[in-house]
């Protein structure tokens, strides 16, 4: 019998975190989040957040940040802050790797703005990869409280794009 509090029992030790990192590496995951009562962990791959450019060198998970320490995410500063606290509402998640656009063209008005109400069918942004312009729908209803990515910046698979309430 180990003498540990329930929280400690749920928490991960260093060995388990290393196993998680290996698992992320194996499955090419860039973000891993886990949350339980009294415990929370966010692992992110790569210090310099450049998801659209993969180097030929083996992918390494050098700067995985246990306990959600904000990483030096050059490409996506908002995402770094996002990882640092518990999301209070719902999030629209990127279904693919690509470049994030808030509007159909530089001259057009953005698809959505903070404070706007959306339904499941509302187009919220475009994600482009290999010149495929993919319109992303909210897939949920609510009010946009935060746009987490800057126009023209890269996004990863599974990365939160918008926060809703």
């Amino acid at each position, binding site marked *: 019998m180990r003498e540990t509090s329930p929280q400690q029992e749920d928490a991960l030790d260093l060995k388990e975190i290393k196993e998680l990192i290996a698992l992320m590496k194996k499955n090419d995951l860039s973000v891993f989040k886990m949350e339980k009562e009294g415990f929370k962990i966010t692992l992110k791959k790569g210090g310099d957040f450049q998801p659209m450019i993969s*180097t030929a060198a083996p992918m390494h998970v050098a700067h995985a940040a246990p306990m959600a320490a904000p990483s030096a995410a050059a490409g996506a500063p908002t995402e770094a802050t996002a990882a640092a606290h518990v999301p209070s509402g719902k999030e629209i998640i990127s279904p693919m790797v690509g470049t994030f656009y808030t509007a159909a063209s530089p001259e057009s008005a953005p698809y959505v703005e903070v404070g706007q109400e959306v339904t499941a069918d509302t187009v919220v942004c475009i994600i482009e990869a290999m010149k495929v312009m993919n319109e992303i729908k909210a897939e949920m209803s609510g009010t946009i409280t935060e746009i987490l990515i800057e126009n023209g910046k*890269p996004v990863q698979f599974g990365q939160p794009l918008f926060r809703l309430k």
Partner: protein
Amino acid sequence: MIFRSNLKPLTIDARILRELRNAKSHSHVTNCELSERCETQPGKIASRIAALREAGYEIEEHPHFGFRLLAAPDRLIADDLAAMLDGCTLVREILVFQRTDSTNDVAAQLSRSGSAEGAIIFAEAQSAGRGRLGRKWDSPAHEGLWFSILLRPKIPIQEWTRLTTLAAVAIAQGIESVIENRAAIKWPNDIYLGDKKAVGILIESHAGENGFAVLGIGVNVNQTQFPGVLADRATSLRQFTGHVFDRQLVAVAILRELDALYPKMRDRFSEIVAAAEARSYLRGRKIECEFAGRRICGVAETLDENGALILRNPDGSTVTLHSGEATIASI
């Protein structure tokens, strides 16, 4: 006849055109043969021939030998396109607009109203033809091909980027068969003849339930000049070869290639990547790429298994580009 046609089954006019085209320049087709092969009443043939003549087809009628097609109008005719695409599995329906804002928008509207994969939308002219990020695409009437294809790919959304390489290869191969010369692919989605762009591709997709992708293609076919700065960057099949081309035959050549390649997108994509690599305009050249505000320089090498471009940096390491605008570096 002109504006709308189906492939399964072909309309009567499409069947008549198919038979006339199959016999073209060789022999006539009798009224009797036509009615039999088109599965229609002999009495109906004469009235349909009259209608085809009204649409601009020159059809000779010999008292003994029957009908012979002499010339087709320089117009996009839905039934004629359907007739020439008979046997394709992907192509299902042809729509021809005389003028529309953008064929991609029409295709997207059709998709939203539940239209199945394989509808092809042509326009003789587009008033708001566009490229990526709303960039204007010049689409003058009757000189080029401006069309969009509605697709519902049955592969995971992350792999829909394969459509870009698929489209580029299909278009390059289709054009090569028509001009009997090589076409190059400037990664990822431009077709070059010589050092100028002849084709633009715009793919717009919508993920989620009832997701779809619209493949928009603009081919410069018979233009003899381009306005302003385009003169230095754009070319047409006619400018490159010195010949005038039948736009319908160019469209059919491209769509037949697309029809043959589309099923390979899931399991035999490496064949499509190899065909794109063989036509690479950038390979071995020093290029610059703007990406998310960063400038990347390197020599273009091969494509990876998903069609992304591999760049070799000056220090010998490589980077793989999935996005961004690649231009040849000025030396």
